[in-house]
């Protein structure tokens, strides 16, 4: 196995190039996937902020109809899997899905258990930690963001409201976006990178193999055939047309075989008295 010169020359080169390119591509894909997921989280967080700000006036005015209408319209958008606002107790006050209204949020659901796993739920989360990824009941991968609706002076000083000043959070907006577009983009990216990697590998290994064949393997094969001719006694065979070091080897072989032929009668004569 791997005894031929060509195999011994090409295998390490092919292994080194292929391995390194594959490692770099896998790491690059992983980095790009992480960056794109982070961008998607940022986008979802911005969307949640936009919704909170858009509904602020309706909340101040306690306009439940407008608020419900905004939430339903947002929920109708393509790619929005769920959008809901629930109060501190977890009671869904507004939702794009009407069957969720006035129901308590199940803390054991895939999207909630991340924070509500322990006896005390996590309260302080960074912007990126507010995001969570899970599969919903429909089997769709969802990227969800929860944005707390904080109590502001305008809330607890408004004449129509009953919130007191000590209440820090009034409720939470929860919005879930489908990760299907991101998944499709990542698949396309992965396929393009695989094709690109494959082309680079073919070009590099093919180039190295072609150069080796042209400069080393073919001349070596000619030299080998010439040596076989000499071994077979065909000393008159001219040396192959070669360049560089291999030409020197071929000429040396040619000269040595000629000298051997010329000295044969002398050697035979010299051997006779001793024999």
């Amino acid at each position, binding site marked *: 196995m*791997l005894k031929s010169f060509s195999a*011994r020359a090409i*295998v*390490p080169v092919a*292994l*080194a190039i*292929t*391995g*390194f390119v*594959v*490692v*770099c591509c*896998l*790491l690059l894909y*992983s*980095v790009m*996937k*992480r960056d794109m997921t982070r961008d998607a989280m940022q986008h979802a967080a911005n969307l949640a902020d936009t919704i909170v700000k858009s509904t602020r006036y309706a909340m101040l005015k306690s306009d439940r109809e407008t608020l419900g209408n905004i939430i339903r319209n947002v929920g109708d958008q393509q790619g929005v899997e769920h959008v809901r606002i629930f109060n501190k107790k977890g009671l869904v006050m507004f939702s794009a899905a009407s069957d969720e209204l006035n129901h308590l949020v199940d803390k054991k659901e895939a999207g909630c258990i991340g924070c509500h796993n322990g006896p005390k739920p996590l309260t302080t989360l960074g912007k990126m930690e507010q995001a969570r990824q899970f599969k919903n009941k429909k089997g769709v991968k969802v990227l969800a963001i929860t944005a707390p609706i904080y109590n502001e002076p305008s809330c607890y000083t408004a004449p129509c409201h009953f919130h007191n000043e000590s209440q820090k959070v009034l409720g939470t907006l929860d919005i879930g976006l489908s990760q299907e577009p991101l998944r499709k983009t990542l698949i396309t990216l992965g396929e393009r990178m695989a094709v690109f990697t494959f082309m680079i590998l073919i070009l590099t290994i093919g180039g190295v193999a072609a150069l080796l064949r042209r400069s080393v393997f073919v001349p070596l094969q000619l030299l080998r055939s010439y040596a076989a001719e000499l071994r077979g006694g065909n000393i008159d065979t001219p040396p192959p047309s070669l360049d560089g070091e291999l030409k020197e080897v071929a000429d040396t072989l040619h000269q040595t075989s000629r000298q051997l032929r010329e000295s044969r009668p002398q050697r035979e004569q010299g051997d006779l008295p001793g024999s």
Partner: protein
Amino acid sequence: MPQNLENHLEETIDKSRDLDQLRQEIKTRIGRLQAAANHGLWALALFIALSTCALWDFSFFPSIPDEFQSMLGKPPSFNMISGALVLYSFSAIILTLSRMMGGSGEGSPFPHVLYLAAFYGFYHFAKGLDENFWAVFAAGLTVLGLESYRIWTYSNDEIRKEQERLVELERKRAFWSSDEHL
């Protein structure tokens, strides 16, 4: 018996003893080289076993206590670990290729298994092993595959040379024994 013939016989016996010793040494060296030729495969097998554990995110093992984890501090960022992995793969491949070029038999593949285990460990603590498992696995296969190939070709070349020496020795031994019979 004339003195010079006696000396000649003693010399022949000494030479025969030396040849026996040399033959034994060569056979020992061949045995050692044959064992060394398999070191690369052993390292690969060890790495694959380690990778199987890593594929399941080391869930077979008990988790490290939180106190110990907090004592270790914050894990390095993904980008830093990935950069280190690229740098490690590149330098390990260059080192192996240069050793291959120089026909050197130095170096063992087992330290590479340790380095790769460290990368699995870093990704595990940074909670990113599932995303980066295949990159470490591909790096390990490349580095250990090249290292195994280098050790295997070097050992086989050396074994061939030792076997040629052994044949030469047998020829000398046959010559001395025929001389002794004369």
